[in-house]
């Protein structure tokens, strides 16, 4: 009896230590990346970095303002295109997607979710950049939006499904048409979760580089016109990190730190939205 108890405790202890160690490895990666970025990039972060455009090679003191603004515009426009489509698709899947069409949409979304982002980039290049005749920020946004839609659709679907059936019935029994029940009761109830999903999706695409290579292309000048090529932080990092100059490497590290910080802020925001909304509902 005692031996058995000892064995159980031993197994229990070993397993706990094992999963603990594995999660430590997972966290370690993030800590290492962040630490490395801070060590390499933090020293380059100054006012100029955020407000100045690049200076000609050989000079020092330039910034990446054009890339920061460019990332904001491209990602913002992508969100503008992708969020309504994604949320709408998710709502459809959860509320009406029990039939064959729903199955097809779900399957396509899952495949699209797993599609390498560079393929999406090539796709947009073929169908948007080539007909238009030139690279543009708009094309970049479309590519990022295509990446967002399946992510958001599936998250929205799952969260809407979590809304208790009794709430739906309560609204229907009051004389709500079905679409109004979906929008006003079900979607509102799941809103915090949907919002979180959207923020996570935005954070995901903010760092995408491959689809932008064929679409937004990059730009050494400050540009806010979405019909023209535009720089983005991720493109900037790619270009500077693979370039031959120390100054470029320095700026690449700093850009990476800014991008990482942006994603981190979005993730924290997502957490906060989820918690404060849920807290208020209880």
């Amino acid at each position: 009896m005692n031996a058995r108890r000892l064995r159980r405790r031993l197994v229990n202890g070993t397993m706990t230590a094992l999963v603990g160690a594995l999660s430590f490895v997972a966290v370690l990666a993030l800590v290492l990346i962040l630490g490395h970025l801070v060590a390499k990039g933090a020293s380059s972060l100054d006012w100029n970095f955020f407000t100045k455009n690049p200076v000609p090679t050989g000079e020092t003191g330039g910034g990446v303002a054009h890339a920061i603004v460019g990332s904001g515009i491209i990602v913002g426009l992508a969100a503008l295109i992708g969020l309504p489509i994604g949320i709408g698709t998710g709502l459809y899947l959860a509320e009406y997607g029990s039939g064959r069409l729903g199955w097809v949409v779900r399957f396509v979304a899952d495949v699209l979710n797993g599609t390498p982002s560079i393929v999406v980039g090539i796709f947009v290049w073929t169908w948007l950049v080539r007909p238009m005749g030139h690279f543009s920020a708009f094309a970049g946004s479309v590519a990022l939006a295509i990446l967002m839609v399946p992510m958001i659709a599936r998250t929205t679907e799952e969260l809407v499904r979590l809304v208790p059936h009794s709430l739906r019935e309560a609204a229907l029994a009051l004389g709500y048409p079905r679409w109004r029940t979906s929008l006003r009761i079900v979607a509102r109830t799941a809103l915090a979760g949907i919002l979180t999903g959207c923020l996570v999706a935005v954070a995901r695409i903010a760092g995408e580089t491959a689809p932008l290579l064929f679409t937004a292309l990059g730009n050494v000048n400050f540009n806010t016109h979405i019909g023209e090529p535009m720089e983005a932080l991720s493109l900037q990092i790619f270009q500077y990190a693979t370039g031959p100059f120390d100054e470029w490497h320095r700026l690449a590290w700093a850009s990476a730190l800014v991008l990482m910080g942006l994603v981190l802020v979005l993730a924290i925001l997502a957490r906060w939205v989820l918690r404060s909304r849920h807290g208020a509902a209880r």
Partner: protein
Amino acid sequence: MTTTLSDGRTVGQPPNERFPVRLPDRPTPVLDVRGYSFWYGLTQALFDVRVAIPRRAVTALIGPSGCGKSTFLRSVNRLNELIPHTRHSGDILLEGVSVFSKGTDPVALRREVGMVFQQPNPFPKTIFDNVAYGPRLNGLAPKRDIPERVEHALRQAALWDEVKDRLQTPGTGLSGGQQQRLCIARALANEPEVLLMDEPCSALDPGATQRIEELLVELKRSYSIVIVTHNMQQASRASDFTGFFYLGRLMEFGPTKQLFTRPADERTEAYITGRFG
């Protein structure tokens, strides 16, 4: 298309939105169920139910689990239709008009037939908004009259005094019993003809249950109430008429006193005396 009422008068098909046929208080039934059967896929859940539910009274439906009480209740406001692969035969008349007729919009119907569910299910909104949702949506009252209407509904549900100082707090923050009364207020704010209650007290403690039962006595002055209950005492205490469902059939229907003291059917007797169920 016209419909003949049981007192011989005929009424035309009402317009989609409301049921304007409001008869004076007379002993016509508010609900007239004629040979109603219902199927979930291939499984038949209700068999040829025939019953006239009296106006301005509390009608209790009792019977063992799975006997079709809830299915029957959810047929009246056509909530069952939302479940795929269901079908029915026979007819249910509300105020002499078939709820299944082509001119009846289920959405409009559900505004006339309020429902209270087993689990309190307030919306994750403020107390005020919970009650105001129905009237706002259905355009029953101009905007400035909504607060008055909310107060009236909350008073009818005997909840006003407990929540009047915190109408803007979430409805989900109330106790279980209060939440259920909030749901009743929400249903009453639509001023329905009929109030359907599907085991409204099964999630409540005895005190809250008693409050709801007292409420039923108040409400039956203005509403016709059909309540499904598993609690035999509740049926005998709070209802005027009782129907006993068994295996999808309405075995017996009559005044509560009579059904509980001199049941005509031996299965009714066996059930109410606790020999099965």
